[in-house]
């Protein structure tokens, strides 16, 4: 257990969580809902995004309204300045994105510190990294959409980064701009990426959850209210302001940076593009390799639970209780007295023994710790004469 993590770090986490439990009880301890927090902010983003979508116009100029320029920037300006509560909805959308990145990173940190990222959990780790990258890219497209000077710089930087890639570079640039230059079609493409990829997150989350029984995806209402209150506090304390409207003929060079989403652009400005791509791809691959078996010392290899075929009555108790969806009830072979038979998917099994505790018929066993041996040990201890 906990072999590859510094022991002090794990103990510190446990101590903090124990202290939190003492104050607000374990039912409301946000540490126990760390995976559900970004999920909550995702719903907030979907809802506030839907409200913004009703008024947003994805163009850089609009010939039909030439007397009175209407474009992405003016529509955002209208939402912020004129629409009742528009600034609040925009602020919620913006800061909920930041909050989602923070909670995702905290989620990943806790999972790593408590050693819950490897072996049978590798699907969750890798899909989590993909989800984080998707969230970062969705957030960046959000910064292009407001179409102020920062958006223009970011778009141009992204184009130059795409061009620096061999083979796929030109195609990537054409896909990103939806053409060869920045036009009205570019902004509609950004909006499509921003919204389409957001819904693709739901598919990614399905992969993230598919190996878990009863995934914790909804914090209790009390925590939701608290998260929302923190968000609104930030929204009112730091109202969102737009920059100057982007002018394609100008070349702005500097902008305020949002460290949660735009740190890749900070890096891009510091190093040349080849180094940039090597660092970014290297970091991603490195994160994906964290659960590699040779990087940690397993205390004992996992031995998957085994069903005792002659004892299983097909009651489904173990399949209901398995936390990793590792037990599947299949139709019992012909001639059996029972309808179903439990089968273990060994690649999903964690060897935790919850199924052993769930079985009232002694029909499932951990090969390295038979429950009959445990019971025998308990009997021997209870019956032993005092020395």
């Amino acid at each position, binding site marked *: 257990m906990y072999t590859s993590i510094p022991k002090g770090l794990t103990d510190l986490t446990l101590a903090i969580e124990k202290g939190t439990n003492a104050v607000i009880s*374990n039912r409301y*301890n946000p540490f126990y809902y760390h995976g559900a927090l970004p999920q909550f902010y995702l719903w907030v983003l979907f809802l506030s995004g839907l409200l913004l979508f009703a008024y947003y116009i994805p163009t850089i100029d609009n010939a039909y309204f030439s007397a009175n320029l209407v474009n992405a920037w003016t529509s955002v300006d209208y939402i912020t300045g004129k629409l009742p509560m528009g600034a609040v909805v925009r602020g919620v959308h913006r800061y909920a994105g930041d909050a989602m990145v923070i909670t995702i990173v905290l989620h990943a940190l806790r999972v790593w510190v408590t050693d819950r990222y490897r072996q049978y959990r590798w699907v969750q780790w890798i899909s989590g990294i993909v989800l984080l990258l998707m969230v970062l890219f969705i957030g960046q497209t959000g910064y292009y959409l407001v179409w102020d000077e920062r958006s223009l710089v970011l778009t141009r930087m992204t184009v130059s980064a795409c061009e620096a890639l061999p083979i796929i570079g030109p195609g990537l640039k054409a896909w990103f701009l939806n053409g060869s230059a920045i036009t009205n079609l570019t902004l509609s493409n950004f909006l499509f990426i921003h919204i389409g990829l957001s819904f693709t997150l739901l598919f990614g989350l399905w992969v993230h959850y598919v190996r878990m029984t009863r995934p914790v995806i909804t914090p209790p209402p009390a925590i939701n209210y608290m998260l929302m209150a923190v968000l609104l506090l930030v929204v009112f304390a730091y109202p969102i302001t737009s920059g100057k409207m982007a002018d394609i003929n100008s070349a702005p060079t500097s902008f305020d940076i949002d460290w949660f989403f735009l740190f890749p652009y900070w890096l891009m400005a510091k190093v040349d593009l080849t180094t940039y791509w090597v660092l970014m791809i290297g970091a991603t691959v490195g994160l994906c390799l964290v659960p590699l078996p040779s990087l940690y010392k397993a205390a004992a290899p996992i031995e998957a639970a085994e069903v005792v075929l002659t004892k299983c009555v097909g009651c489904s108790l173990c399949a209901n209780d398995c936390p990793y969806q590792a037990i599947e009830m299949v139709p019992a072979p012909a001639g059996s007295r029972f309808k179903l038979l439990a089968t273990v998917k060994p690649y999903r099994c964690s060897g935790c023994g919850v199924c052993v505790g769930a079985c009232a018929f002694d029909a499932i066993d951990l090969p390295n710790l038979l429950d009959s041996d445990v019971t025998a040990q308990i009997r021997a*201890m209870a019956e032993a004469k005092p020395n």
Partner: protein
Amino acid sequence: MSEQKVITLICERACDLDSVCNEQGEVKEVDGLHVVKLPCSGMIQPLMIEAAMKAGAAGVIVTGCQIGDCYYREGNRMIRERLLGQRPPGLKKTVDRQRVLALWLSRPQKDRFLSEAKEFVAFVRQLPAPPPPAAKPAAK
């Protein structure tokens, strides 16, 4: 009756008792308190608790991690629900509930375990001996 054994069924990730146990898994400070380690408290079968009682143990202490924090996601919640009769399989009605103690302690909480266990051991040993199996108490 003071030598009656008390069995502790404990998750190996819950409070760390290695430093207070001898090689046979007996807590040094408390006479007759034995420890059986399992990969997760969710592995504890109610049958194991019944077996300990039948073999003459005065009581059983079930220890898992803090509720909400299980390495295997739900193990401690499962055994808690089984002990409370909210999830099958449950404890038999004949098992004296006074003789079962459940503690949910994280790894550094060794001292809390020792103080609670001492109190519990003293309590179950002064309880009157369980009635012989023939005279079953009326079902509630």
